[in-house]
């Protein structure tokens, strides 16, 4: 029997109701927000008036980048910002199918962003288009937490923060007794909750190192990815026991330099046939990762140094494999680059927390202060009165901060790397001992121009990014003899920048010019590249292309385009 007339029930005619239901169901499956449930809990007040981040009414716009999914978020946003005439703050950045989307407030900003369309080229030389449409208030703004809730959340977060480890434990945050007691539902999968949490971390613990988000039913990482801009110091991330089912989600976190990651207990872990494949997939995402799910990973293989720097090869005399040899040479280049730069604080990264350093100079039998090397004792207020006049040893400096503090006070120097004689005299996989003999010049102060000779011994352990971590450092400095002074710095040019070097054959000169034309690099840099690759033109070209793609070649290497 067909019903007549009585279909006028409370719900309006909704020919599309089936589809809407499907959509709602789909949202549930993906863990998307259940807006209807939310509305029941909160007052209507939220929908009126407070539609903006600062409480004033405003209009919102949705910005869409088709195919935005394939770009690295940081690159994309930086590119857009650099082409945009107005600074903007993206809200609720997320991906929908192939698109990247975010919201901005205010018509002027939206219009400026529209102008950026077709102005950015991706690496395949395709133009990126940007679509702008008016939109309703974005989710995290519409449902942002009340000030009292933010205050309570802040207290809870502070309680869960471990100062000594710079670690924040937000496991099962939803069930925190304090939050539950105050009727605050922190469902971190919801954009507004995640945004509030990140905001509090950014304001109160901006140096955060370790973040534990285990057991928070996270289905996606769009919300968390904002942390890359807000709290980039995070190195340890625990995402175990969540609902991440695609490794692609992790790509959103690539902007973090993670050392340690926990993923076990996520559906994505079960999608791999075996452990090595799983590890390999994760490492593709985070090449510098050291530990996954509590397991140490083999050290990452990072190719090449950051900038090509031209120095004459040091004289070496040691038994050691080529890899060790270049490790030590590279370390010395980097170390002395910073040491001579005028600000030695960069050396903090080279030393172990508990390293030791000592400095000795020979002193004349008379008052040590008369010695021209007295500058080297300037910062030692409690210098031991030497028992024997020829011995002058400072108290040992312990911990990297004391050491670098001590180094910063020593006279400014310029080392002659071509004078270095390096002895590697002990090596195991964990420890490397080597000594460097060489000369340097003092470049300022009352001893300006004096050439000194030094012997420096390092004990170091291999560090995470294929460099060395100094554990012991002993330095001995003396005046250089006249012969040493004469032969030092004989090639006049500073040794750590590209400079033209001994004469090249006709053939080589032609290669340099050709390479320079093809690569766009200046002649000296082209020459350096060819030299480094033993004048194998093809190989040099490959290395150049690889470095260029990794962005490792400094701008100054390239010829100015007139």
């Amino acid at each position, binding site marked *: 029997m067909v019903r007549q007339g009585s279909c006028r029930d409370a719900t309006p005619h909704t020919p599309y109701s089936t589809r809407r239901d499907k959509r709602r169901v789909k949202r549930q499956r993906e863990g998307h927000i259940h807006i209807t449930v939310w509305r029941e809990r909160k007052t209507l007040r939220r929908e009126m008036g407070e539609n903006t981040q600062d409480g004033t009414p405003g209009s919102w716009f949705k910005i869409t980048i088709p195919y935005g999914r394939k770009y690295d978020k940081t690159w994309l946003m930086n590119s857009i910002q650099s082409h945009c005439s107005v600074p903007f703050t993206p809200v609720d950045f997320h991906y929908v199918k192939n698109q990247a989307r975010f919201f901005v407030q205010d018509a002027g900003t939206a219009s400026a962003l529209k102008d950026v369309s077709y102005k950015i080229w991706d690496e395949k030389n395709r133009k990126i288009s940007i679509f702008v449409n008016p939109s309703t208030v974005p989710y995290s703004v519409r449902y942002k937490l009340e000030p009292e809730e933010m205050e309570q959340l802040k207290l809870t977060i502070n309680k869960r923060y471990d100062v000594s480890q710079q670690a924040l434990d937000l496991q099962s945050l939803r069930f925190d007794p304090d939050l539950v007691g105050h009727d605050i539902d922190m469902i971190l999968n919801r954009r507004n909750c995640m945004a509030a949490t990140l905001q509090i971390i950014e304001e109160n613990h901006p140096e955060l190192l370790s973040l534990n988000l285990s057991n928070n039913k996270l289905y996606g990482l769009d919300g968390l990815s904002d942390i890359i801009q807000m709290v980039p110091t995070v190195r340890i991330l625990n995402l175990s026991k969540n609902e991440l089912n695609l490794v692609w989600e992790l790509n959103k976190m690539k902007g973090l330099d993670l050392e340690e990651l926990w993923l076990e207990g996520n559906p994505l872990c079960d999608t791999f046939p075996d452990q090595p494949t799983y590890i390999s997939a994760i490492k593709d995402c985070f090449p510098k990762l050291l530990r996954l799910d509590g397991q140490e990973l083999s050290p990452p293989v990072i190719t090449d140094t950051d900038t090509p720097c031209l120095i004459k090869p040091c004289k070496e*005399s*040691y*038994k050691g494999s080529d890899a060790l040899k270049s490790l030590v040479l590279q370390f010395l280049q980097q170390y002395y680059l910073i040491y001579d730069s005028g600000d030695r604080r960069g050396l903090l990264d080279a030393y*172990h927390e*508990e390293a*030791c*350093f*000592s400095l*000795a*100079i*020979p002193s004349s039998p008379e008052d040590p202060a008369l010695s021209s090397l007295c500058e080297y004792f300037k910062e030692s207020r409690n210098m031991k009165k030497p028992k024997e006049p*020829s*011995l*002058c*040893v400072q108290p*040992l400096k312990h911990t990297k901060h004391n050491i670098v503090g001590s180094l910063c006070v020593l006279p400014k120097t310029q080392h002659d790397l071509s004078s270095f*004689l390096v*002895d590697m*005299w*002990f090596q195991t996989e964990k*420890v490397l*001992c080597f*000594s460097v*003999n060489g000369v340097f010049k003092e470049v300022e102060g009352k001893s300006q121009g004096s050439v000194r*000779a030094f*012997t420096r*011994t390092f*004990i170091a352990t291999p560090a995470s990014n294929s460099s060395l971590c100094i*554990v*012991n450092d*002993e330095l*001995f400095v*003396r*005046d250089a*003899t006249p*012969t*040493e002074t004469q032969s030092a710095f004989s090639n006049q040019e500073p040794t750590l920048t590209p400079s033209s070097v001994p004469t090249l054959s006709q053939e080589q000169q032609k290669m340099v010019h050709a390479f320079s034309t093809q690569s766009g690099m200046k002649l000296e840099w082209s020459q350096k590249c060819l030299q480094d690759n033993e004048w194998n033109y093809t190989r040099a070209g490959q290395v150049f292309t690889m470095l260029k793609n990794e962005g490792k070649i400094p701008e100054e290497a390239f010829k100015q385009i007139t």
Partner: protein
Amino acid sequence: MGDKPIWEQIGSSFIQHYYQLFDNDRTQLGAIYIDASCLTWEGQQFQGKAAIVEKLSSLPVQKIQHSITAQDHQPTPDSCIISMVVGQLKADEDPIMGFHQMFLLKNINDAWVCTNDMFRLALHNFG
């Protein structure tokens, strides 16, 4: 002596002992090395107590005398001691030469032995 850190005490006693042995009768130096010791002498490497003593004994000098200009000691994280010595030596009738030597000392069965020894002549005299 009590105010000096322990590694300095050990290091300087060792240095004193070493050069005394070296200058008087270097064939006795075997006592301070072990079979795992390694000597790097002017860039050449010698491994093991026997090889080291052989190298040192066979140096073409009859009379040798060391004088220490500076010495420096540091503890290492694995409880070893690294000692650096800079000084001058006179061999037979040759002119005085500067030298530089490093020792890595380890405590084995309550005695401090040298596990690594690195020696280099300084090519020029000290001022």
